């Protein structure tokens, strides 16, 4: 059998083999064992066969051989012969592929390209009746010709233009259309199409709008959006289409389908973007006439948004190259009917359609400086007239809002004071009305009745926009506004929700970015003057709002420095007074400084050393003096003041240089004082409560310093076991809660951050020793338990080698026969992983990412099996406190674990959570609240399905409903918060039937797992609607609504 015959036999079922045969022949040809002519001639007996399949296979053989030849092998003449051969048989299978190979060769010329194109055009009149694959190959060949031999194709002119159109007319396959559209786009852009504009336009526009929806699991991955994009590129490709495209697209806006309208608008926007300004101008007024209705009677928000975008784009295009304003501009002719319409609608500015008009004015005026000038010329004066004649405040407010929209546009066009570059050559047309604006807005802000809050807020916002607008107001005019704001904040009584004051503060802080000098010169003196010298005990704390305002406007650097000086001197005076009044006042001053420093990047602040000297060194010395009884008053003996001061020191210490931090490390306990002045705590024989409280400051200082300073900390060389033991002793024996807490954190901080790996055994021994203090009855006192847990926290977070052992040991405490020990321990589990301000990543604590996972996966199986034991043993043999203790511990841990970690354990976990909800007593409220929070997160993130998979929907719903009851029975308590949380979970169940679905998502097709309990839920919630608490009722209404809407019954059934 010849190679050809073998090829024809195998080609259908073994492509690889066929390819190999062709490659063999190609090699023979290249090594001149056979000639190309022989190969062609060998086809002889088949190519005239009557069976087209046979003919196709023969031609494919030749194609396969050519494809296997090296690209340089064929001579020009051979290519020519082969091309003619293939063109003659172009309808036979394989010929098109052969031509595709040939046209890609270097020696293929322009003349041949024309010949191939001609052959395509004249032989495929019936292309659409062929298979999709065949059509695809033809389009691919055409596409290759277009990219490789474009000049040849273009020179064919109308022949190729009409040829392409004829070939593709009627094409319906999305894969083919993707190619067709890109071929056509080239023709549209590069050919002279003047004689065939309509033919060409129709050939693509027939496909508008695209309604294609890809089948599920489409292997080709073509989306409707891909097709829409290519089609849109064609329609917007040339301005010649404008007379056809724009009217047709506008007509499509009459459609009732929002999707069609959306496509039409998007394509329209693409056309405006791509056609030249002259063409756009011709249609601009027509477009406005149609789009106006889309905006005024907005059906869908996105349609009016797109329409506004289109209007703005027209204005932008018409502004291109325009530098001078004149009424003869095409832009002016376009804007004229727009401003006219808006002016008319604004006659009744409180009506619904005034709002869209404001948006229209806002967006067209923001298009360009010229556009802005033209709009302002037409609109502002009439608004003033209307404003003067307005018969009510509602109308006036709507007019001010319209102006505010223009001011926003002005900001976009002309920039703000702080905007860099982009200066506009034209004068701001609003300048003409500057004084009027100042009068009207000032009058509206300060002259209106005090309860007209929303009116005044509108005026305030407008005034603010003008104040930040670049090169608009003079300094003194902005100063006037600042004075108004000061007056509102300092002199006016609170009204309602205090919206006006909130806006005033926001405005001052905005102005502080643009004109800090005005704030320092006007606002600061006025505000600081109202701060008292001292505040009496139990006074009304009227200084708080002032301090809050100062804090919010002082984030800018210059202003903050002023604030610091002023407040620090207040504080210094207070510290010297023998009778300084309430400690709340100095504390509030410290909080103010803390707040602002948190907003700023202190490490970059050049004045940070000043703050360090004044606060860290200065005030710490004062603390030491106070603790030794040498101060004029007891402000710095107060634990809350010390805590705030500590946080401030912590923040500053973190921002200073390493040298300074080393100094802090050396002075952690001595607080920058000599031993004569102040006796530091560690190893002191006797300490007063005042002295002990300085541990609060020491802890914050220690937290702030870098690990690199650890060798400078006193009492830690060569190792810190003595120091740690001393701290443990003190933390257990101290009587003050604040000092106790500080000792615990101090201890944990040393162990977690500063204890080296080699010395970890010190902490572990400490842990064991503490456990040994357990008395024979298994009880430990609460301070000891807390010390154990803090020590464990420090070790678990850094994943010390003994972590698992520690956790197991902690769990044994829960089974202690002593109820007090068991309960206290159970409540302490939450602190193991909870975020802490001292042992935090910011403070460089050693927190390993896997620590959460390790704790969780160790604890869950242990708790679960222990509870099962207790359940089986019954209450006769195990004390009743043990089960609640385990559930409390679980709730505590869950509240500190991300749900992603929880999900894999859900089947084990859910029964435990449900048992937690079964607890009824008042003590269990916290546990149940935590459980409900966990459940809420699980449902929100994962939907009902996960609970359904564990088979617990029914038991969960029953327990949730039980938790919503107001008087559940003797000894049982459901607090209002608990009831509301349970209702929230019920609500989430109904709204999250699909994982991750948005609120109000419709139930998926198929029966909802919630359906069996729907009746029960609706009935039970009806009773909750009468709950004595308003928040609970609100939650019940929402939950009931969600179940009514979201859990689908048969459509017509109403309960």
């Amino acid at each position, binding site marked *: 059998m010849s190679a050809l015959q073998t090829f024809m036999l195998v080609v259908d079922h073994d492509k690889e083999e066929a390819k190999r045969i062709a490659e063999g022949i190609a090699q023979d040809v290249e090594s001149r064992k056979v000639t190309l002519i022989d190969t062609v001639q060998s086809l002889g007996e088949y190519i005239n066969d009557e069976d087209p399949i046979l003919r196709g296979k023969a031609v494919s053989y030749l194609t396969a051989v050519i494809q296997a030849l090296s690209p340089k092998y064929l001579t020009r003449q051979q290519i020519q012969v082969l091309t003619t051969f293939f063109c003659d048989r172009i309808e036979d299978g394989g010929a098109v592929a052969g031509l595709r190979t040939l046209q890609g060769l270097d020696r293929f010329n322009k003349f041949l390209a024309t010949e191939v194109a001609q052959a395509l055009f004249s032989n495929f009149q019936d292309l659409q009746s062929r298979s999709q694959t065949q059509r695809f190959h033809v389009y691919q060949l055409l596409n290759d010709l277009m990219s490789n031999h474009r000049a040849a194709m273009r020179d064919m002119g109308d022949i190729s233009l009409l040829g392409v159109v004829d070939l593709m007319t009627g094409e319906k396959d999305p894969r083919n259309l993707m190619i067709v559209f890109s071929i056509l786009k080239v023709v549209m852009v590069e050919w002279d199409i003047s004689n065939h504009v309509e033919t060409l336009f129709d050939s693509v526009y027939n496909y508008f709008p695209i309604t294609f929806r890809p089948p599920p699991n489409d292997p080709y991955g073509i989306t409707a959006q891909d097709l829409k994009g290519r089609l849109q590129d064609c329609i917007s490709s040339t301005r010649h289409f404008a007379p056809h495209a724009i009217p047709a697209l506008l007509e499509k806006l009459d459609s009732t389908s929002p999707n069609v309208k959306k496509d039409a608008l998007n394509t329209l926007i693409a056309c405006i973007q791509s056609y030249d300004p002259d063409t756009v101008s011709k249609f601009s007024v027509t477009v406005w006439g149609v789009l106006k209705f889309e905006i*005024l*009677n907005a059906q869908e928000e996105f349609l009016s948004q797109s329409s506004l975008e289109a209007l703005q784009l027209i204005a932008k295009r018409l502004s291109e190259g325009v530098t001078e304003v004149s009424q003869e501009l095409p832009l002016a002719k376009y804007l004229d009917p727009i401003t006219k319409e808006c002016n008319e609608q604004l006659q*009744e500015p*409180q*009506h*619904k*359609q005034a*709002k869209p008009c404001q948006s229209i004015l806002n967006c067209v005026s923001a298009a360009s400086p010229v556009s802005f000038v033209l709009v302002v010329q037409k609109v502002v004066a009439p608004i003033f007239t209307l404003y003067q004649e307005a018969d009510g405040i*509602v109308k006036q*407010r709507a007019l001010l809002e319209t102006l505010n929209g223009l001011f926003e546009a002005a900001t976009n066009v002309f920039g703000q004071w702080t905007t860099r570059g982009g200066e506009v050559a034209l004068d701001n047309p609003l300048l003409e009305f500057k004084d009027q604006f100042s009068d009207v807005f000032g009058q509206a802000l300060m002259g209106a009745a005090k309860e007209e*809050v*929303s009116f005044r*807020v509108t005026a305030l916002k407008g005034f603010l926009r003008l104040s930040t607008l670049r090169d608009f107001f003079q300094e003194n005019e902005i100063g006037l506004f600042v004075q108004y704001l000061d007056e509102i904040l300092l002199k006016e009584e609170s009204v*309602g*929700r205090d*919206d006006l004051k909130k806006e005033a503060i926001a405005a001052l802080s905005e102005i502080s970015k643009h004109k800090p000098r005005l704030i320092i010169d006007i606002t600061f003196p006025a505000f600081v003057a109202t701060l008292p010298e001292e505040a009496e005990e139990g006074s009304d704390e009227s200084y*708080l*709002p002032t301090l*809050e305002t100062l*804090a919010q406007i002082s984030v800018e650097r210059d202003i903050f420095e002023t604030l610091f000086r002023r407040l620090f001197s207040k504080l210094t005076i207070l510290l010297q007074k023998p009778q300084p009044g309430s400690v709340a006042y100095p504390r*509030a001053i410290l*909080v103010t400084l*803390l*707040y602002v420093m*948190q907003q700023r990047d202190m490490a970059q602040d050049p004045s940070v050393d000043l703050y360090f000297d004044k606060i860290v060194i200065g005030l710490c010395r004062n603390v030491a003096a106070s603790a030794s009884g040498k101060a004029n008053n007891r402000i710095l003996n107060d634990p*809350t003041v010390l*805590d*705030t001061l500590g946080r401030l020191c912590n923040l500053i210490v973190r921002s200073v240089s390493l040298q300074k931090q080393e100094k802090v490390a050396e002075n952690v306990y001595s607080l920058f004082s000599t031993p004569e002045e102040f006796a530091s705590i560690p190893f002191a024989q006797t300490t007063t409560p005042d002295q002990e409280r300085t541990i609060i400051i020491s802890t914050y200082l220690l937290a702030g310093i870098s690990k690199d300073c650890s060798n400078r900390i006193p009492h830690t060389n060569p190792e810190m076991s003595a120091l740690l033991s001393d701290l443990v002793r003190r933390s257990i024996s101290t009587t003050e809660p604040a000092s106790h*807490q500080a000792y615990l*954190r101090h201890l944990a901080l040393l162990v977690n951050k500063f204890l080296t790996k080699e010395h970890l055994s010190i902490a572990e021994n400490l842990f064991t020793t503490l456990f040994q203090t357990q008395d024979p009855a298994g009880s430990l006192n609460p301070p000891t338990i*807390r010390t154990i847990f803090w020590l464990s926290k420090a070790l678990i977070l850094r994943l010390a080698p003994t972590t698992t052992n520690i956790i197991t040991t902690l769990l044994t405490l829960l089974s202690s026969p002593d109820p007090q020990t068991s309960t206290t321990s159970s*409540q*302490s589990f*939450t*602190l193991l992983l909870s975020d*802490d*301000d*001292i042992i935090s990543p910011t403070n460089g604590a050693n927190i390993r990412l896997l620590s959460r996972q390790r704790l969780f996966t160790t604890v869950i199986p242990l708790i679960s099996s222990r509870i099962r034991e207790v359940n089986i043993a019954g209450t006769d043999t195990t004390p009743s406190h043990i089960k609640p203790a385990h559930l409390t511990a679980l709730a*505590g841990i869950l509240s500190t674990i991300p749900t992603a970690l929880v999900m894999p354990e859900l089947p084990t976990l859910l029964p435990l959570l449900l048992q937690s909800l079964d607890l009824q007593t008042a003590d269990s409220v*916290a546990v149940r609240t935590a459980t409900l929070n966990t459940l809420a997160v699980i449902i929100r993130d994962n939907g009902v399905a996960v609970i359904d998979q564990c088979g617990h929907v029914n038991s969960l719903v029953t327990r949730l409903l039980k938790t919503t009851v107001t008087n559940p029975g003797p000894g049982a308590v459901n*607090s*209002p*918060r*608990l009831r509301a949380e349970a209702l929230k979970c019920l609500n989430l169940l109904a709204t999250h039937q699909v994982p991750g679905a948005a609120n*109000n998502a419709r139930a998926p097709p198929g029966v909802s797992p919630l359906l069996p309990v729907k009746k029960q839920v609706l009935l039970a919630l*009806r*009773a909750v*609607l*009468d709950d*004595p*608490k*308003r928040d609970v*009722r609100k939650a019940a*209404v929402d939950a*009931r*609504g969600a179940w009514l*809407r979201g859990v689908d019954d048969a*459509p*017509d059934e*109403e309960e």
Partner: protein
Amino acid sequence: MAEIQNSNPTILNAADLPTRLRPAATRKTEYGGIFTSALPLAPVDYESALSSDSEDDNLLEEPIDEQEIYDLISSISDPEHPISLGELAVVSLPDIEIKPTLPDVPDSPLQTVTVLITPTITHCSLATVIGLGVRVRLEQSLPSRFRMDVRIKEGTHSTGDEVNKQLADKERVAAALENGALMGVIAKMMETCH
């Protein structure tokens, strides 16, 4: 709804609508304002973090009042505009009244809610639908001891009596609620309730 009947109604500003001010609660805490962010609660342990609601607060009853009814129905959307009934002033606080149903029986828990509806224009054919929507919302959201009385405010509608008769007729209301298309409209109106 082929044709919109009132395409340009007056709109009230959402910020001006009556709301319940949360009294005291925020004022009571030491730093109600911005400083809470600067100062996370001083370090606490589990015991003190227990639920903050005190016994006194829990016992204080908050009866259902007019504002609560208003909050329930003002967020319903108008079937013509995607705007709430509150903003369109179709429902307003002074036009809501709660009274004991049986004034002669002081112990009776029964109460009657009267809601007067003001259509945006006097010939609005959707007034019935709006009334029905308000009714359905109240029935879904109020306990069973409440009776609803939803009516068109006198003198605000050309066929007010006719509409009122429809809204008061229990059987006609029940029949209307069986109508799938109508319930679809009402369900859409209530999507904005939150």
